């Protein structure tokens, strides 16, 4: 071990410590930003020490360094530009794109490592196995994440896309990728075989994500995020770089935990989401109980809602997908502030999957200047619904369906917000259309519930205007 290697090893350990500390601090809103900055500092240390060791040990030449600088400038400019300008509602697809490029980079590093080796001897297995795995996983996450981003952005239709024989093509792609992978390991340095692995894995990534419904896309993005971590760790094995191994494994673990939690909160299992894409009928029907049967429903106007809110003591706002889709976070925050300034206690009950991915609603509300102390998680919120005078549900449906407590339906067992425990309920919704689970919601026909049919943004604006009259008086 040279002195450079030793110093680099120590610096990598420092970087790893900073990554773990950073992630640890991201557990609480008050320290989360600092946590991310600590992790960024770890990244800077890892990058600088890698540059130093590369210059000392290998040297390289002007062309190599030139290509690196050009690439970093282009990629960095693109990444920072998109990160600075993205709308908060579009965060999920941007995360997916950043994940795609990470997977692509991991695969490229492995390919470069493979190509570089002498073409007369075969690679030792402890180097070729990680290379093949890296190319496989990296390529799947690259193409899969791009498709997922397209679905979230709406460029690719959100409905599951399948075509005749898509399942067979899918299986074929996997088999070809695996067979070419094994052949790459046993044959003498065959770049063409590795390219076959690459192409088959890219095709598989596309075919794996295309059939997945838009609502499930965030779970897939999270799963692919975990896989990219593993691909990066494999790259670390291939080029014997501990920073890649540690950081990749951390992200692999993080992504796995997140994926499981997201799927659990949506009452879906990860295998059923993925296998759903393989042609089983596990797709939302979306038609059951449709129709606009308005009997048994108490309809409210903006004025009715405003009176109810203005004379309440405790108000709980339940934001859902409809609020995120209508980009109405500023309107709801404005209404809440009006009520709070009037001395009314206003809190937000946030279901783990409200918004477009877990925690997305919190980001949207934070953007609208809502303090995080007003955002209650599922358990905290459920402890307070009993004393709540008005629960204002904005564009949420399945996450507050009391039928989840009963067995034998599409939402059975899903953790829900106990909105029906509130003294009265107001639901702002565009129509009686069922949510993603495709079933009716008895909350809407509950005698204490009033329905205000409106687009979230317009409805909240109208309620705000009406409420102003009452609280000013």
């Amino acid at each position: 071990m040279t002195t450079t290697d030793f110093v680099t090893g120590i610096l990598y350990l420092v970087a790893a410590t900073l990554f773990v500390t950073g992630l640890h601090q991201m557990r609480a809103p008050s320290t989360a930003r600092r946590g991310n900055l600590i992790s960024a500092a770890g990244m800077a240390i890892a990058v600088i020490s890698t540059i130093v060791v590369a210059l000392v040990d290998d040297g390289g030449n002007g062309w190599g360094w030139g290509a690196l600088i050009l690439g970093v400038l282009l990629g960095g400019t693109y990444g920072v530009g998109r990160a600075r300008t993205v709308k908060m509602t579009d965060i999920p697809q941007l995360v997916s794109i950043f994940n795609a490029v990470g997977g692509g980079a991991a695969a490229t590093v492995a390919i470069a490592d493979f190509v570089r080796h002498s073409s007369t001897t075969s690679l030792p297995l402890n180097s070729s196995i990680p290379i093949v795995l890296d190319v496989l996983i990296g390529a799947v996450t690259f193409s899969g994440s791009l498709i997922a981003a397209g679905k979230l952005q709406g460029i690719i239709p959100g409905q599951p896309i399948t075509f005749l024989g898509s399942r067979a093509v899918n299986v074929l792609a996997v088999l070809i990728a695996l067979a070419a992978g094994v052949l790459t390991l046993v044959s003498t340095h065959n770049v063409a075989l590795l390219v076959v692995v690459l192409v088959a894995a890219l095709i598989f990534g596309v075919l794996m994500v295309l059939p997945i419904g838009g609502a499930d896309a965030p779970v897939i993005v999270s799963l692919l995020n975990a896989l990219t971590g593993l691909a990066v760790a494999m790259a670390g094995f291939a080029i014997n770089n501990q920073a890649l191994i540690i950081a990749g494994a951390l992200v692999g673990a993080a992504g796995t935990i997140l994926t499981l939690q997201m799927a659990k909160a949506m009452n879906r299992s990860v295998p059923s989401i993925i296998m759903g894409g393989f042609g089983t009928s596990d797709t939302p029907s979306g038609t059951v109980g449709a129709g606009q049967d308005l009997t048994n429903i108490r309809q409210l106007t903006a004025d009715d809602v405003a009176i109810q809110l203005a004379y309440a003591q405790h108000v709980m706002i339940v934001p859902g997908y409809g609020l995120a889709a209508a980009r109405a976070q500023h309107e709801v925050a404005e209404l809440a502030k009006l009520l709070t300034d009037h001395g009314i206690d206003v809190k937000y009950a946030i279901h783990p999957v409200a918004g477009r991915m877990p925690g997305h609603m919190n980001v949207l509300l934070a953007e609208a200047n809502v303090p995080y102390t007003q955002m209650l998680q599922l358990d905290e919120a459920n402890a307070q619904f009993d004393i709540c005078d008005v629960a204002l549900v904005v564009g949420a449906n399945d996450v507050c369906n009391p039928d989840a407590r009963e067995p034998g339906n599409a939402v059975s067992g899903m953790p829900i917000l106990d909105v029906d425990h509130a003294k009265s309920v107001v639901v702002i919704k565009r129509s009686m259309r069922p949510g993603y689970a495709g079933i009716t919601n008895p909350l809407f026909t509950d005698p204490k519930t009033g329905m205000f049919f409106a687009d979230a943004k317009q409805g909240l604006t109208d309620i705000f205007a009406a409420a102003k009259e009452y609280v000013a008086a």
Partner: protein
Amino acid sequence: MTETLFSNLAIFVLSLLVGFEVISKIPSTLHTPMMSGANAIHGVIVAGAIATAALAHSPIGYVLTFVASALAAANVCGGYVVTDRMLRMFRKPDPVTVPVAVPITAPVSAVADVLKRAS
């Protein structure tokens, strides 16, 4: 060579365990920023791109270096910036300005306190 492999495997497995432990405790409030933050961390592949650059000695090597570094830089730079943008918005509540309400039960509890002290 097997020694290196073994120590790398040990590092890998222990890092996985640390990852599970650190991350399983994050509240759902922060899942989106956390996912984005973890996403930025796998941008460490930029270190792989640097190593690739130093070892590149052929046109195909330079091209692959360029591709790897462009993709990795977008991941790492964009990832940290967008995560910071999200987390910057999470703010503490304003200093309390709501007038302190005196509960109707205040006199009762005051009397109760006195009685408790007396007994």
